[in-house]
């Protein structure tokens, strides 16, 4: 069970102060939604948890991101180890131009696992967890690019699950999907939280309400309010939160 925590996080892109003194704890086996207007820093914050911002020019971080008590920004921490712990799913499905099977097995092979029997088992298990197995079990050698958008996104989730992460990071995972595919991804998230801790960035407030246990509202690089989702959507403590979720901003 992973313990994820952010302590006194400040992020700059050059002179731009993108995240301002943010501290948060994430409860295991929960879904936490990040909401806020574009440019408020929620994706930047999400990407800190598997060091996706490291290569951005002029990126500078102060503070600690702790996974199971270890600061993942400490010197000597291996990037591949972090990314095994924290899998990422992006806004647009991004399968590799390979077969369905090879997509799911990719991370394992990169980590040196080439045992066919073992890979078969893990691929099947990941596809089952991603609620895709029944649809693709007979066409595993088919190109992933031939799948529908919703199937591709579930394949990307399966790919993330195959390396057995504990934390799943999702950056608007359903924004490019139709309502039926969105519903499947949302149902999947509710199923996955039994075994994983999930953080999702979403612009869809109804989606945040449907799937998350906790919601964090970001504005201009600040964490304005972080609370149980029911509380945020029924009776937020901060006026800025209320103004945002009721559409009365600005």
């Amino acid at each position, binding site marked *: 069970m992973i313990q994820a925590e952010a302590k006194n996080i400040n992020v700059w892109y050059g002179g731009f102060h993108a995240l301002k003194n943010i501290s948060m704890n994430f409860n295991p086996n929960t879904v936490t939604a990040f909401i806020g207007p574009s440019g408020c820093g929620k994706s930047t914050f999400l990407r800190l948890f598997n060091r996706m911002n490291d290569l951005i020019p002029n990126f500078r971080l102060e503070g600690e991101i702790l996974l199971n008590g270890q600061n993942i920004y400490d010197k000597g921490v291996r990037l591949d180890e972090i990314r095994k712990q924290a899998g990422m799913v992006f806004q647009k499905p991004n399968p590799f131009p390979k077969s369905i099977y090879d997509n799911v097995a990719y991370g394992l092979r990169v980590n040196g696992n080439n045992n066919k029997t073992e890979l078969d088992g893990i691929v099947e298990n990941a596809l089952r967890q991603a609620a895709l197995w029944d649809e693709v079990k007979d066409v595993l050698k088919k190109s992933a690019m031939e799948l529908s958008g919703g199937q591709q996104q579930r394949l990307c989730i399966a790919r993330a699950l195959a390396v057995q992460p504990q934390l799943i990071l999702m950056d608007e995972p359903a924004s490019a999907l139709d309502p039926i595919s969105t519903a499947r991804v949302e149902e999947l998230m509710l199923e996955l939280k039994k075994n994983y801790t999930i953080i999702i960035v979403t612009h869809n*407030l109804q989606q945040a309400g449907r799937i998350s246990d906790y919601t964090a509202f970001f504005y201009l690089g600040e964490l304005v309010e972080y609370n149980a989702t029911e509380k945020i959507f*029924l*009776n937020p403590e901060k006026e800025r939160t209320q103004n945002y979720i*009721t*559409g009365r901003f600005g």
Partner: protein
Amino acid sequence: MAALIESNVNHLKETLVHMWQLIIAQMEKARQTVITGDKNLIPEIKFNEKRVDAFELKLDMDCENTLMLKNPVAVDLRFVVSALKINYNLERIGDYAHGIAKIMDKLNTAIPESVLEQTHLLEMFYTAQTMLQEAYDAFETMDRNKVKSLFETDKKLDRYDKESNAIIAGIIDGKPSLSTESVLDILLIMKKLERTGDHVLNIAEELVFYFDADTIKHSKLDKKDSLPII
């Protein structure tokens, strides 16, 4: 998005206010009928009862549409949920005003002053109408103190109601000028006024939810006494 949901909620508020004002007027006309025995107002009450029903249907539909199409959250959601329930309670109060008018229509004579006094009927009317008006004022001004005072005021109606059976029995024993059936009809009016107070308290509970997201329904009175009053 803000303008859309705001205009929608404002429209709901306006409709609710109009309905509330109509109910207040209906109850006042019912009182006039009881005091004077004048039946001239009764057709108006009966006609307006149809307007009350129409308001109820419209508000139901508008609230459902708002929930379905506008996805309100936070204070907007609390308002729409409360409005649905306030609507139901107002309609019931409207039914009581209409019911009182029908009773008065049936009576062949005005209620004697002595009976009005013995039954505290006018005090009951005054208390119920005051509660209805104060709930309305609290809604308009979002005044939590006014909401709190309603729970205290309702105790008066409860006291009158507790005594009502004995009072009515005493009147019947005293061989009044009214028929026994008419005296029992007066008991029915008293019961309707007591129920009016109960429905205003239901409205008060909805106002607390709308203002502060607190649920005080089915809680003991001591909890209501310690409402988060500003």
